[in-house]
């Protein structure tokens, strides 16, 4: 059978050429292609993984943020409340203090006024006495003798004069 009898020429060329094809393809074609394919597949897998991770991270960040926001809001509320109270307290305290001070000052002023009034009355009393004596002296220059009696009268009348 001619059909199943291999030709030595074709066998020879096929063996040589196919070996060369194998070696060249392995070195220059399959090596780079397969490594690039593997690399790309790995890259895609990595990208997917990192995307998943990023999504999880974002979620946790979001949750964290929400939590923080809530906390901050509560804190703000508390702060506002506190400061309001503080201000109120301060105001009332201040008011009390001012009231007290005012009272104190008022009383001291009143006292001073009283004192001044007293001294003024005193001095007026004195000067009225002197003036009255002088007046009396002048009136009585002519009626000299009865000066002491008159003095008494003046004093008495002055004492009756109640200036407050």
């Amino acid at each position, binding site marked *: 059978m*001619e*059909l*199943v*009898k*291999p*030709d*030595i*020429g*074709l*066998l*020879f*060329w*096929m*063996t040589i*050429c*196919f070996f*060369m*094809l*194998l070696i*060249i*393809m*392995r070195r*220059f*074609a*399959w*090596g*780079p*292609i*397969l490594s*690039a*394919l593997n*690399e*790309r597949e790995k*890259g895609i897998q990595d990208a997917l993984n990192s995307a998943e991770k990023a999504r999880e991270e974002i979620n946790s960040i979001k949750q964290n943020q929400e939590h923080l926001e809530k906390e901050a809001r509560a804190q703000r509320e508390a702060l506002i409340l506190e400061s309001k109270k503080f201000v109120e307290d301060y105001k009332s305290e201040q008011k009390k203090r001012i009231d007290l001070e005012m009272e104190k000052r008022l009383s001291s002023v009143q006292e001073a006024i009283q004192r001044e009034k007293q001294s003024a009355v005193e001095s007026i009393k004195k000067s009225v006495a002197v003036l009255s004596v002088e007046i009396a002296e002048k009136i009585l220059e002519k009626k000299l003798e009865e000066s002491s009696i008159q003095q008494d009268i003046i004093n008495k009348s002055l004492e009756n004069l109640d200036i407050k």
Partner: protein
Amino acid sequence: MSQLKTIRSLKKRTNILVLVFMFLFVQNAFSAGPSGKDGFDAGQMILHHIYDSHEWHVFDWKGKSYSIPLPIIIFHEEKGLDIFMSTKFNHGKSVYNNYKLDHGKIVFIGDGGQVDNIQTSMIWDFSITKNVFSLLFSILILLSIFITISRRYKNKKNQPPKGIQSLLEPIIIFVRDDIAKSAIGEKHHEKYLSFLLTVFFFIFLNNLLGLVPFFPGGANLTGNIAVPMVLASLVFIITTLSGTKYYWKHIFAMPGVPKPVLLILTPIEIIGVLLKPLVLMIRLFANITAGHIIILSFFSMIFIFGEMHPAAGYGVSVFSGLFVLFMMTLELLVAFLQAYVFTLLAAMYFGAALEEH
């Protein structure tokens, strides 16, 4: 609208192209038949196509044969090396340097003008025949395609494939995942991957080239016994070299089998080891050759009926053409299928040899 028009005109053009191709094939087929006085011999025409040839016959025109000359390389045990072009043989009509082309074989012509059988047996024919040329051509195509692609893979890493790369990448991944990984396993498949890929694309491309009816296709390379023989031998060698202790133990002394049974079983297993690559070889060879024979037979019918009456020839040609179209489509599938089967079985043999417990 204009798009539709261009599609329509394209369709028309492809139709014309198909017609031209079919015409060429018919020409080719018919021209190859011996145009003797005893009429058209279908069997001889078909065999002529299945066999190798020392020149690439293109067509006959007015009784003259037109073919592409191929280099003849002869090593004679006494005369030494001789290299010349096949035109020197003048299609088998002339004798050159005592050599003559006789029915596709180179024979030695003695001084008396007769074939010298003793001298003929000393001829080693290393000619670049039609099949060798086709082999070199297919290797050139494979190298140029895959080295171009690999350059793109190297230069543009992590980028989506483009052009022919995107056509071949799924096939490469298919061979890797569905043949190598599934048959050999995740652990060892990488070692065999370049062999499997090369074998797959070599068989696939040559099967397809064999279906192209004119130069530089049409050679029956994968249907020539020598090519599957080399491929199957390589599979056998690789399987034998990668066999584990477990594998050999199961061939020579199947554990758990009584001794007397082993006497029968071991020879069967040893035959099986040799039979596997043999079947691999025959399957590829027979499938491709059968496809060529069927297609050529349908064409032969036209001429057989044409010899009876021209009208019968024309009538049959319609059905023959349709059948050939159908067969061609089937052969396209077979071209892929045989490449797949050969590669898958080779991978399975490797996987079996690598099996460990």
